[in-house]
């Protein structure tokens, strides 16, 4: 996944400034989303909530793929692990949701490290194939081990958490809870990618051999990129289960992993806000297109296809290019 080589004259690296703009956008976004559902009905609120949950999963994959350059086709599997861990712990064992949330993150973090090991041996598409196999194996486990996971019938009546005695069962209350959690997780990721770790991840993406020669422990960072990205998948799952209040294996299949990958790329891989845009495209756009009746999925896929053809770097890439062109005082042109 080589970065586009821009042979043009030196251009200002506006990334750092953009990222601080990203912080502002995060705060603003959280504020807007806190109040947005007013008068929107439970459906609109639910769709927004679902969008936030998917955004968390996409954020994780964006770290693994967009920042650290490690292709993973298993993010939905991690979401599934998190969702099932939370569902089983809270329904069967009566564990507090917050503890289950933390344990889900820990579990997926550890399994993410394990999945990272092949990445030390093989890269790019070969790595993608290994994660593809892993993703399907997890799905088979979720479906077949009925004694634990409920098998094809899934797990129903998953309770929503409370907050210091406050009940969050209502659509709006839980939505606000999700806004807060998403905001915290996004903030953590914002901090992470700005820290030296983020720099090391990007170095790993752009040139692992050179990075190693500069003392970057590529092994540790590769495993961490997988582990943290997977943990975000686990967190998303731990929120998905109480949001839908029911889980079965279908939302954690290979095709969903591919779909999450689509959201990363379409939103703009390697951009902090890319996952939000990607998940917006993947979750909210199809809902919105429902007015088109039976053709809505064709229209949705066509929009994604055309978007990618016009801008392979995704919406964020397009926005950045437009922004730069605007600042240089000339209209946003086509491809560089």
């Amino acid at each position, binding site marked *: 996944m080589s970065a586009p080589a821009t042979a043009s004259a030196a251009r200002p690296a506006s990334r750092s400034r953009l990222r601080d703009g990203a912080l502002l956008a995060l705060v603003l976004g959280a504020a807007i989303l806190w109040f947005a559902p007013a008068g*929107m*009905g439970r*459906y609109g609120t*639910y769709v*927004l909530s679902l969008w936030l949950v998917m955004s968390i999963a996409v954020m994780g994959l964006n770290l693994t793929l967009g920042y650290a350059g490690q292709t993973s086709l298993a993010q939905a599997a991690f979401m599934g692990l998190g969702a099932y861990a939370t569902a089983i712990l809270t329904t069967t064992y009566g564990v507090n949701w917050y503890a289950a949330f933390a344990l889900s993150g820990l579990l997926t973090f550890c399994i993410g490290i394990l999945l990272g090991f092949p990445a030390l041996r093989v890269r790019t598409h070969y790595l993608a194939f290994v994660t593809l196999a892993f993703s399907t194996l997890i799905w088979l486990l979720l479906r077949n081990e009925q004694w634990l996971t409920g098998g*094809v019938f899934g797990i129903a009546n998953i309770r929503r958490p409370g907050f210091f005695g406050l009940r969050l069962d209502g659509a709006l209350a839980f939505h606000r809870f999700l806004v807060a959690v998403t905001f915290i997780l996004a903030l953590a990721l914002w901090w992470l990618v700005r820290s030296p770790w983020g720099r090391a991840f990007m170095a790993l993406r752009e040139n692992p051999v050179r990075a190693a020669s500069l003392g970057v422990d590529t092994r540790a960072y590769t495993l961490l990129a997988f582990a943290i990205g997977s943990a975000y998948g686990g967190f998303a799952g731990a929120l998905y289960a109480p949001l*839908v209040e029911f889980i079965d294996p*279908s939302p954690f299949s290979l095709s969903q992993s591919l779909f999450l990958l689509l959201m990363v790329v379409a939103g703009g891989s390697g951009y902090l806000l890319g996952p*939000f*845009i990607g998940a917006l495209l993947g979750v909210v756009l199809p809902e919105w297109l429902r007015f088109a009746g039976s053709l809505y999925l064709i229209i949705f896929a066509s929009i994604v296809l055309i978007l990618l053809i016009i801008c392979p770097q995704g919406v964020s890439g397009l926005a950045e290019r437009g922004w730069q062109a605007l600042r240089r005082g000339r209209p946003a042109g086509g491809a560089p």
Partner: protein
Amino acid sequence: MKSPWIMAAALAIGCALPALAQDKVKLVDVIELSGAGASAGTNFKNGADLAAADINAKGGILGKPVEVIHYDTQTNPGATRAAVQRAIDEDAYAILGPVFSGPISASMQISQRAEVAQIVAGEAAGFTQQGNPYIFRTSLSQSAAMPKIAKYLKDTVKAGSVAVVWVNNDFGKGGRDAILPELEKAGIKVAADIATEQGQADFAADAIKVKNANADAIFVYLNEDESARFLRAAKQQGVAKPMIGETTLLGAKVIELAGDAANGVKGHVGLSVDAPLPGLQDFGKRFQQKYGYVSDHNGIKGYMAVHMVKWATEKQKKLDRKGLADTLRGATITVAEEPGILIDTTILKNGDLDRESFLAEVVDGKQVINTVLPKLNP
């Protein structure tokens, strides 16, 4: 970079449509139109559309036209929940569908909370056992159908051992989990227990396994096209033992696809357009006229679901959402009273159904009904 949030808000507002005035009877069909359940869902959708057209041609329900809106579940619980939530926000009078038990389980609490009747096409046993008073079936549940099959295997086929072939989704697994205890009760040995994948490329290995199990009979519980392909593979491998199945093994689609290989297949049929009931046969003809193919049981379910709403609404003489569910619960709908129900149906307190069903056999490429099984509690 604020644009995504604004876009999100705008899109979400676009999602939240204003409630329509009640000059129509608005039914929202939340159904599998893509993903693993698309074939079943499309049948159900067409059946419901045909029912709405029929009802509107005769002046609607209480003089108001019926409108059926279809929302795709993508065979995914999260998307299903969104669709049902939307239906309720849009003041749907009743919710039809979905078919798969995952999507049903993910959405039935929503309609329960909103006190809206949800008339589903699922056959798995579980969801009517949770005390939800707003869920209704359109077919016999597997826990009602499987005892009949076990009895048939024991008394008519006289099988001492059976090989069970099932598709590993909620439908197949549900059926398998329901038949195994019944077989045990009937003293029939399970010689082989074979799971298959939905969309599996080839059934040769499964057919060989069945053949080697050397059971007295084979119970096949797969979706229609997989049923057809399994029958063909079994024929090719020279499996000669009787093939016993449920509605999905004896349907017109299976016979069309499997050709010769379907001949001699026997079993229990809940709903069939070949049943010896004029209503069902007439429905089958008109469905084929309109859509160009033969309806499977899901098409019949869609048609019935709309007519269940019609009957109950006319019974309570008003468009009362909560009343609809109350009226349906425990009701018996007869064809004499409401021809659109196609077959006399009793709705139990938990939403399960009791009605006649059939024992059938495929002879010369046609489904022939041998026996009509009475209701469990006539």
